[in-house]
């Protein structure tokens, strides 16, 4: 087991190095750049040259990359070109917001998706099943930004159930401990703040959850249908076991194996979905940071760090998924 983990971590390092090089080259070949963004179109060539030199962009790209890697090893990701703050700080401020949103979305997707998928399979061909199949198809095909604005319109403009945007209400002075506002509220016993943060969280989380939810429902349904035909489920029935034992121990335990893999892969969808969702709900997280860093200023240092972070999260989550797989399925352990 330990060898598997070590091997995977080594793979992770190689992946990240390769990815960092790709991002580095790709970013610097985009039209425009930080110099243009900072100085505007009327700057004289002399000023441009000065700033380019000051930022180190006059050197060959491999030298720039070498220096970048050197600094990373010491934990220094540089400063944001836009604000001048250290990149670590900029990302650290935005990270909890996105993490909170993504976690809430995943809880909704898994918590609703697995039971729904199971029920659809058990009631195959009935109304609930048809409804689920059509519903998930819609969930997968509706663009996030469209659904986001739709939900926002209905639930904040037509019926005022939820606040339209932001993470907390205006004028509410919540104490920032971890940056996870719901958690902060609970920790500091400011329960009104926690409730308010949760209130702001629901619509964005629902919006972000739709795609993973639909995928998990479909995966669970297909997987449960497969397992229902397995001989060992018939054996369990022949033993006269209770429904809940058969459901939990014999059906779901086996059916969830592929679903767990799906959950890991969906973190990727969650990261890209967060960009759109945050835009719709004015949610100041990593998604907002990414769009701002690209459109505003071509903030190379921030973008590089963000993409690496996204890759790191994706790979680590999938590593955890693989490890949990080995834990659930004894047949994997032997290898």
């Amino acid at each position, binding site marked *: 087991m330990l060898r598997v983990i070590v091997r995977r971590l080594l793979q992770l390092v190689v992946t990240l190095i390769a990815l960092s090089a790709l991002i580095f080259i790709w970013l610097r070949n985009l039209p425009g750049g930080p110099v243009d963004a900072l100085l505007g179109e009327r700057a004289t060539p002399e000023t441009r040259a000065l700033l380019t030199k000051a930022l180190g962009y006059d050197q060959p790209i491999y030298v720039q990359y070498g220096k970048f890697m050197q600094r990373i090893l010491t934990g220094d990701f540089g400063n944001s070109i836009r604000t001048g703050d250290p990149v670590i700080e900029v990302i650290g401020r935005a990270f909890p917001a996105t993490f909170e949103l993504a976690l809430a979305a995943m809880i909704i997707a898994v918590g609703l998706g697995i039971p729904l998928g199971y029920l659809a399979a058990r009631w195959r061909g009935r109304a609930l099943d048809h409804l689920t199949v059509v519903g998930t198809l819609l969930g997968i095909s509706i663009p996030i930004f469209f659904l986001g604005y739709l939900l926002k319109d209905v639930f904040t403009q037509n019926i005022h159930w939820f606040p339209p945007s932001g993470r907390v209400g205006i004028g509410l002075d919540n104490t920032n401990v971890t940056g996870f506002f719901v958690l902060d509220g609970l920790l500091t016993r400011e329960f009104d703040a926690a409730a308010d943060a949760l209130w702001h969280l629901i619509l964005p989380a629902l919006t972000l959850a739709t795609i993973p939810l639909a995928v998990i429902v479909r995966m669970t349904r297909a997987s449960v249908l497969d397992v229902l035909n*397995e*001989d*060992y489920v*018939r*054996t*369990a*029935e*022949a*033993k*006269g*076991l*209770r429904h809940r*034992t058969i459901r939990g*121990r*014999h059906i779901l*335990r*086996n059916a969830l194996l592929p679903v767990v893999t799906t959950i890991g892969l969906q973190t990727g969808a969650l990261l890209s979905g967060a960009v759109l969702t945050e835009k719709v709900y004015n949610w100041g997280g990593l998604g907002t940071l990414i769009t701002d860093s690209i459109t505003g200023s071509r903030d190379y240092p921030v973008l590089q760090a963000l993409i690496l972070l996204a890759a790191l999260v994706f790979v680590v989550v999938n590593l955890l998924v693989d490890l949990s797989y080995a834990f*659930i*399925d*004894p*047949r994997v352990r*032997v290898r």
Partner: protein
Amino acid sequence: MSLLDVRDLSVVFQRRGERPFTAVDKVSFTVEPGQTVGLVGESGCGKSVTSLAIMGLLPKRGNKVTGEVLFEGTDLLKLRPDDMRDRRGRDIGMIFQDPLSSLNPVIPIGVQVAEVLERHQGRERKQALREARELLDAVGIPDPDRRLKEYPHQISGGMRQRALIAIALACKPRLLIADEPTTALDVTIQAQILTLLKQLVDDTGTALIMITHDLGVVAGLCDTVNVLYGGKVVERARRHELFGQPRHPYTHGLLNSVPRLDSIRGERLHAIRGSVADNIPWTEGCAFAPRCDNVVDACLEGPPPLEPTATGGDLRCNNPVSEEVAVP
């Protein structure tokens, strides 16, 4: 009173947009306490469907089961699903054809045995595992302490079938249904499993329904044999009568197609001509008629009735095999 009295059991599969298919057609047979009864026939003759219908394990939708399955006088087909659930595994145990796929791959063997005891005998997990150990020992699994913690993929095919037998017999059921229990196993292991089954039913007094296409299995085990063809019983006889003097041309053909040690070298094995696909529906005559060597005009005029024979069995045939041409 018989332990099990199956009366006119029929199973009709009815899928949307398809013609109804009668898999089991008014099958009747009895099992006395402690008796071993064989259900014999080729693939598709309805023997597995019969056993699943007795157990109440057919899919809830897409089929219609009629008739009576009296177990100690209670009609199992009329029981509420939960009452039937209480009886499965406790009063009637069942073992299946493929021991690997019949065991849950992600649960240790010990738990799979223990959960039956927890369910029906109200045992705690620890006590149930202790008893599971005894059961594994009783079915001849070496080193049972280690096997308790192992998973199905870690033990051999023979051992898996032994584990399934331990599961089926854990609650000392009065009836055990074995559906082709040796088909997926090596020949040497087959013999071991059959010996074990014979010894266990002898020791515990459990009645056994042995479902098989293998007459060799029947020969070594069964008191009474029901030969099924096209969903109907075509011949029923005690083992010695059946092997010594098969009356139905189908039974006769089956026995003739078994290779024998004392047959002449180089002689071709007898085979029943045609295949199940040639069957005609029972409503038009004897389903076996198109493949039968003894076919007479009456065979195509309607289904022959199941009638008692002189030797105490039953036979469904217009022109049975006469004694002179019986198997040497």
